[in-house]
Each structure stands twice: as C-alpha cells, then as structure tokens.
C-alpha cells in the first residue's frame, strides 16, 4: 500500500479542482505530490481545493510543495485552499503560519461554498 494516495476530481461546470490526499505526506513522496499539483495548477483552475481530511501526517517538505503551488496559483489569479486538516496537520499549518497565507476550511463543502 502506498504511503500517500491522491485523487483528482473536476466536475464539468465546477469552477474548482479537488485534490484529495490520504495517508502520510513526507519527504519520501513530496516529489510525486509536486508533480501532481504542478499538473493541476498548470490547468489554471480558478480554485484548487486540497482535501486533507484523510491525511494522517504531513511534514514540512509536503507543506513546501503546497506553498509553492499556492504561489503559482496566486500569480495566475487563482486561489488554493486547504480543507479538513486533522489536528496534527492543523497544528503544523498554524506553527508555520501557513494558515495565514492560504485559506484553511473545516470541510470541502465550506471550501467550495461560493
């Protein structure tokens, strides 16, 4: 079983792309995460939501990949949002102040509400 599994969903007419991460995101799979996010960001979605609700662990290398994607989304005039982080991941986002840099929602539904 892979340490980190990912899925991408873009429904026709939806103004957002949903990337769901499950398992553990760390330095051993941050390269794969980067490729996945780069590919989605390159499609220039208006909103990219990363669902973290099934992610048990995230380290700083995964965070850096996300922050990098956020910077590109910013430049493209889009928004990257995080949804549903569990306690340890939410705390890490807080300690690094990443939660002040990009929106963090409790659920995917909230992140895609507008």
């Amino acid at each position, binding site marked *: 079983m892979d340490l980190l599994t990912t899925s991408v969903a873009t429904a026709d007419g939806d103004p957002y792309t949903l990337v769901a991460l499950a398992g*553990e995101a760390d330095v*051993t799979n941050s390269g794969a995460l980067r490729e996945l996010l780069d590919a989605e960001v390159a499609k220039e979605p208006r909103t990219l939501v990363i669902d973290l609700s099934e992610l048990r*662990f995230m380290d700083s290398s995964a965070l850096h990949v996300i922050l990098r994607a956020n910077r590109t989304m910013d430049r493209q005039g889009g928004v990257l949002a995080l949804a549903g982080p569990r306690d340890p991941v939410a*705390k890490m986002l807080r*300690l*690094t102040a990443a939660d*002040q840099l990009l929106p963090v929602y409790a659920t995917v539904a909230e992140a895609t509400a507008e």
Partner: protein
Amino acid sequence: MPERAALDNLAFAPAEPEIRSSYDTAAPEPAVMADVGRTGPPPSRAGCGVTEQDQAAQLRTPPPLPPPGDDVIGHTYRTDLSKVRALVLQQGRAAGLSESRANDLVLAVSEVAANTLRHTQSSGTLTIWRQPGELVCEIQDEGTIADPLAGQTRPGPDATGGHGLWLVYQVCDAVELRSDESGTTIRMHMGIQPPS
C-alpha cells in the same frame, strides 16, 4: 534544562557577542527569545584564572551530551520514515504523553529524520529512552548542520523551505543539538506529567 540546552546549542557559534544583535527579535516566539537572551558569554570573574581565550574555546566546544539511559530502544532507518513515526507514536503513548504531544514528538522526530534522507547518503539512528520526568528521542546521522541557530527563527511568510527545524524547536520542550564534520546528534525532550 531548556536554558542549558540553548546555551550549549549556541556554543557552536563563534564567540561573537554581535550574534545577539543580529538576531531578528521580531520573529521568534517569546520563549525562544528568553532563552537566547541567556546565552551570552559567562560573566568574567576577575582573579579566578579564566581568560577570555579560555571562555571563547569553551564556547566553541560544547560539552558532550550525557549518555542515554540504560533502557533504550534503537532503530536504524534509511527511507522508511513511516516506521520511525509509528515507533515514536507508540513510545510516546506508552510513556503517558497526551495524544497531541505524542503527535508533536512524531512531527519533530520525522522532520529531523527527513534531514537524514535529504542531506546524507547513509542511514540514521533513532534512540528512544525515558529519564526522570521526560521521554527523549535522539537522531544521529552523518550530516552536518553548519548554522547553530538553524531553525530558531521562523522562515518568512512565503518561504518554501526551512520550516523543519523551526517546527522541532516549537513542539519540543527542549532540543539539544551537536554537529560537526563527523555528524549530527539532535536530542528532543518531552516532559511527562506524573500521574495525579
């Protein structure tokens, strides 16, 4: 303990008093600043035979870390950080850490172990033991950390690197770091509340 740790960590720094004035006082958490404030050279004591050269040498050569306890758990890793995290979580829970603090320790150890993967070609060792009032996790590898203050200031708001050691210092009760050309040892301490 934290004061001592901060002093010893800083002992790597060249004995330049300016190091404190170059510290970004806006960024770190208050607790970190409090510790840094205590890390200047010791006051000179006239007539006791300690020269400034002695003091400088002492500051550059930190005292060795005390040996681990008798009852240690050892684990060697190269790429499987998931196993490292599982072991730390299990030991943290067994030692009586709350779920939140056990997860803090998992994050800290994982961040340090990730540096082994990033910066060395060889395996690293995790050693875990309990000592009075705390659980200790130590990571040893062949990497070298040149900056003794690495991780003591928060990376800028949009930095896409450098958060690893910052997190380690934030979540642990005390961190001891020794590093030279032969390798790096980082000890992470988590206090354990006695059962009430």
